C-alpha cells in the first residue's frame, strides 16, 4: 500500500523525535545533576530548534512530493486512537514526575522525567497511528 500524506507526516514526526531527543538524552542524562544547568538548557534549545527545522523542511518535501493532504473519517479515527494512547503515557509520566519532585532534591529529575514522558507520549501517539494505518484503521 502506498503511503498517504498523513502517514508520511507521522513517520517524519516519529523519526525526528526519536533522533533529536535520543541525542538530547544521550548527552544530558549520563552526566546527571541535581538541578538543570545552563548547558542543559543549551542542549534543549538546540534540540527544539533542530526538531522544528527538521519538521518544517520534511513537511515541505512531503507536500511537494504528495500534493494530496486531504483527510477523511479513517484518518480522524486513527488520530483519536493515537491521541488516547499517548494520553495514557503522558498522564502516567506526569504522576511519575510529581513523585520524583517529592522524593528527590533539585529540579533535574522532575524536569527530565516530565520531558521524557512527553517525548514518549508523542512516540506512542505517532507510533500507534502508524501501526493503525498499516492494519487498516
Amino acid at each position: 500500500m502506498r503511503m498517504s500524506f498523513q502517514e508520511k507526516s507521522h513517520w517524519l514526526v516519529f523519526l525526528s523525535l526519536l533522533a533529536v531527543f535520543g541525542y538530547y538524552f544521550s548527552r544530558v542524562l549520563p552526566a546527571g545533576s541535581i538541578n538543570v544547568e545552563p548547558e542543559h538548557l543549551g542542549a534543549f534549545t538546540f534540540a527544539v530548534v533542530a526538531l522544528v527545522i527538521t519538521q518544517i523542511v520534511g513537511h515541505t518535501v512531503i507536500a511537494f512530493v504528495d500534493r494530496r493532504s486531504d483527510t477523511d473519517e479513517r484518518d480522524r479515527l486513527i488520530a483519536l486512537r493515537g491521541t488516547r494512547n499517548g494520553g495514557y503515557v503522558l498522564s502516567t509520566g506526569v504522576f511519575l514526575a510529581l513523585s520524583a519532585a517529592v522524593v528527590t532534591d533539585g529540579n533535574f529529575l522532575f524536569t527530565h522525567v516530565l520531558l521524557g514522558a512527553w517525548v514518549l507520549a508523542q512516540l506512542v501517539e505517532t507510533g500507534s497511528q502508524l501501526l493503525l494505518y498499516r492494519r487498516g484503521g
Partner: protein
Amino acid sequence: MGKRGGMITNDIRTLRAARGEMTQQELADRVGVTRQTVNAIEGNKYSPSLEVAFRIARVFEVPLEQVFQYGE
C-alpha cells in the same frame, strides 16, 4: 466504524471492474475519502461509517447489501 474482526465483507473490487475498471482513486474522489481508505475498505481491513457505505453504493447505483455483506 473501524475493524470488526473481518465480519463485514464487500464486492467493491468486482463492482469497480464492472464499471470499466474504475480506479480506487476515482472511487475515492467520488465518495469523498482518500484512496488509502478505499484500499483498506476493499481489503476488509476497515469497516466504513454508514454514511460512506451509502455513498459507495450510490456511486455504483446498487443497493447497499449488494456492496457490503455481513457474515456471522
